[in-house]
């Protein structure tokens, strides 16, 4: 039986691992290769490196990080962040990345997904979707967007809220008007091999994954969905696999700061009947 994947995510800035809590404050958590090796020992199933370097010079630093990681770890890894076109994808794959994840560039020019999939194969093209709950009722009431009356365990909403999410880009600053579920379907049609789905409402909160969002996307597409944003406890992983129907779950800070190891999470999941690789 295919196992559910646990994927630590490393945010990399200027060649160093950092973690953005809600994309604002950053804390240094070390060298990418050392961190990656640590996760290989913990039997992480895959790794994601998110390049949050803004400058152009920083881009070549990332290619170098990718090369060093590829030379030292033997599991699949994805690189995302700031990828603009076919040239960037080629550089990262040639440096040893197994997959790349496209976000803003794909929203701006969806044909990039098709071109990249044709050229390099769907299996290495991940489309990252940052989604935020559309919640006009809460907005009018002056409540924090996406919060309020939702039951986090079941993902059920109080009467006046709707299950609808908007794609946002630029670290959540820019709304696009696109519906997240429709965009996921479109990305699949264009040739994406996988969806990396981040809830911008839950990212950095440690309140749990957005189960309703994950489930809505996972049921809408026939490609694997990686749920991201909000992992704070072992139960959260169980919920996103069982109720959210995710194929994989991604987390950063709970692993980086040693709150749990990947092994802890997997042992827990196995006990609760989720297929994982121990």
């Amino acid at each position, binding site marked *: *039986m295919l*196992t559910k994947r646990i994927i630590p995510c490393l945010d990399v800035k200027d060649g160093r691992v950092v973690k953005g809590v809600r994309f604002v404050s950053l804390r240094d958590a070390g060298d990418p290769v050392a961190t990656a090796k640590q996760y290989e020992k913990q039997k992480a199933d895959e790794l994601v490196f998110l390049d949050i370097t803004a400058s152009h010079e920083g881009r070549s630093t990332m290619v170098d990080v990718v090369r060093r990681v590829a030379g030292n770890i033997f599991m699949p890894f994805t690189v995302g962040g700031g990828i603009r076109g076919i040239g960037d994808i080629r550089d990262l*794959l040639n440096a*040893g990345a197994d997959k790349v994840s496209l976000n803003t560039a794909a929203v701006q020019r969806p044909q990039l997904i098709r071109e990249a999939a044709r050229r390099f194969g769907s*299996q290495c093209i991940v489309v990252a979707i940052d989604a935020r709950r559309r919640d006009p009722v809460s907005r009018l009431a002056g409540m924090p967007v996406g919060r309020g009356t939702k039951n986090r365990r079941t993902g059920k909403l109080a009467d006046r809220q709707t299950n609808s999410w908007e794609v946002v880009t630029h670290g959540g600053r820019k709304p696009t008007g696109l519906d997240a579920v429709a965009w996921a379907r479109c990305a699949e049609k264009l040739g994406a091999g996988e969806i990396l789905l981040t809830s911008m409402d839950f990212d950095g909160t440690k309140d749990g994954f957005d189960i309703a969002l994950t489930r809505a996307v996972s049921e809408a597409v026939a490609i694997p969905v990686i749920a991201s944003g909000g992992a704070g406890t072992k139960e959260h992983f169980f919920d996103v696999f069982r109720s959210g129907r995710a194929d994989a779950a991604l987390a950063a800070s709970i692993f980086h700061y040693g709150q749990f190891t990947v092994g802890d999470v997997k042992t827990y999941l196995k006990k609760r009947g989720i297929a994982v690789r121990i």
Partner: protein
Amino acid sequence: MIKKTAIIDYGMGNLYSVRNTFAALGMATDTVGCGRDLGHYDKLILPGVGAFGDAMKELKKRGFIAPVRDFVASGRPLIGICLGMQLLLDESEESPGVQGLGIIPGHVRKFSGKLKVPHMGWNKIKKAVRRCRIFRGLQGDIYAYFCHSYYAAPKDKKVVIGETEYGVRFASMIEKGRVYGMQFHPEKSQDIGLMLLRNFIEIC
């Protein structure tokens, strides 16, 4: 005499990880881009990512087809990885009408049914009951990293030495004489993958 291992480069996918994994095991490999150079080698690695039809076309263009068949006929070991394993068979549903290498009789089929395709992630390999050298040092269930939409269905079930469940039970590892196929990516399967590759180089 120093034994030499060649990785067949036919322009399909990135050879970096495979090459790199052998380097990490302390084993030098050469990347070979032309069929007539295979004579110098004792072991062959046939990796591959992409479509069956494109791969066969590229192999043909670079003059690999006859030399690879001759290599196998001479009793030297070869390992096909992922698409490289599928190419060992006669033909694939992915590219109807295109002839494979035909080293292992059988077809390559597409996953069907309700499951997500590609079959992507870590899955269990159930080892054959008979003893196989390639499994030396590996006890119990083994897990490996898969990423594929098609699977090999060899005619002769005796060549199947590892099986995996994904909607159907399919051949994830095959062995015929000294020819091996691995549907997963040993170079991405952590310690277990490294062990399989080491065994291939050292004892197969």
